């Protein structure tokens, strides 16, 4: 039993790496999502074109390939990344591309009358976006952002392919060292599921807080 606790320690170390990747990847994804999502509704053709290219490219190629490029190909261009950096970069850019479409859709879902009120009150384009459109759009984005974050959490397992010791990687290590398949795989299953639950719960409570007052019932 003491032996198991040692191996469980290994798996928990892997879980920490997975959490780290998820958090950092989510931050990058969020930044990319807003940049590209708002770029997609820009007045300027060139901004729209850049945003669209980014989104289509990263949605259209596999995350494995993107990770391999970040880790194995970029060094040829003189940019060497640590496995963690490469993982965060690939995950953030990949999920950011999906989330960018969420941002764009949410911005477009805010009614035309809100934009017209902004014009009538003489708010500038950015002022209206910042104070009127985005706060309302954010509420529309949140549920899908939750999906994206969970997708990102699960996608972190690809970094085991560039020998980053995440949850999946550690499970393989424990399995090969102990010969036991059930214990490591049950552990990682439970841990991934637990982490996903935490994300769901976090997003839901954020949603509840932001929706307060909007329906006239809860204040």
């Amino acid at each position, binding site marked *: 039993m003491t032996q198991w606790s040692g191996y469980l320690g290994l798996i928990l170390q892997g879980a920490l790496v997975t959490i780290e990747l998820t958090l950092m990847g989510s931050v990058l994804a969020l930044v990319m999502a807003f940049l590209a999502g708002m770029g997609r509704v820009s007045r300027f053709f060139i901004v729209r074109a850049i945003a669209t290219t980014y989104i289509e490219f990263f949605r259209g190629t596999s995350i494995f390939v993107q990770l391999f490029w970040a880790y194995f190909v970029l060094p040829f261009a003189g940019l060497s990344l640590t496995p963690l950096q490469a993982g965060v970069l690939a995950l953030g850019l990949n999920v950011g591309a999906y989330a960018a479409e969420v941002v764009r859709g949410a911005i477009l879902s805010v009614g035309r009358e809100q934009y017209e009120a902004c014009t*009538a*009150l003489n708010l500038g384009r950015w*002022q209206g976006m910042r104070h009127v459109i985005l706060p309302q759009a954010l509420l529309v984005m949140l549920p899908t952002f939750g999906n994206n974050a969970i997708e990102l959490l699960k996608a972190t397992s690809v970094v085991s392919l560039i020998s980053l010791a995440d949850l999946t990687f550690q499970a393989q290590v424990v399995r090969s060292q102990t010969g036991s398949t059930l214990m490591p795989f049950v552990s990682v299953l439970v841990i991934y599921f637990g982490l996903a639950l935490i994300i769901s719960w976090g997003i839901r409570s954020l949603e509840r807080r932001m929706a307060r007052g909007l329906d006239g019932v809860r204040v």
Partner: protein
Amino acid sequence: MPAPIIKVDAISKSFGTFKVLDGLSMQVMPGEKLALIGPSGSGKTTILRILMTLEKIDGGHIQVDGEQLYHMERNGQLLPADERHLAKMRQKIGMVFQLFNLFPHKCVMDNVTLAPMLTKGVARAAAQKRAMELLDMVGLADKAKAMPAQLSGGQKQRVAIARALALSPKIMLFDEVTSALDPELVEEVLNVMRKLAAETDMTMLLVTHEMGFAHDFADRVLFFDRGRIVEEGKPDEIFRHPKQERTQSFLKKIIAAGHRV
């Protein structure tokens, strides 16, 4: 005789193949209260939206308060207005919408103070003081902290009026502001407008189906049909003795539908 505050000169506007405004010209004097009436699709709302720069024009010129609205003069040439020019011109004009268009995520107070703080750099305390005066004027001082969803339609519309007034425009546009309200809530909004007309010298343009109100409120009534002004005159002339056949048949229909004239 003072110069008109609004001069609309041969404006045309189409939506696709539908010609909404067909060489429309009109003038409004400072402080004048104008009612725009007519069947739907006649272009009366469109001209308000054009004055608020919510629609682009296809041709013609508009002068507001001595300056071109959609053009700017540069070295004696008339160029299409850029965003900065439009922003400057919008300061002169405020608008109240049929569906209120309040910001649902902001409380009443923030709805009213947002634009003065952002566009005029008014300090929060000063903006809130002014907002309280305006909310008091529309009879909603006790609702400053409420969210729009907690208000009735009439209350929402009164907040929307206060919000537009907070920017102190010279011209106020009212686009069917009571059309979306339950009948028993119409009067509270009309009362605010009567008060506004009595206490300020603002120029007010009003698109409405409330013929009784238009009659009492307006200095002049314009009857729109198919993108043109068919007939205009004092309320008594238009409502009691309309000369044009189209005006007569429109008013007849309105009365038949149960509206008071």
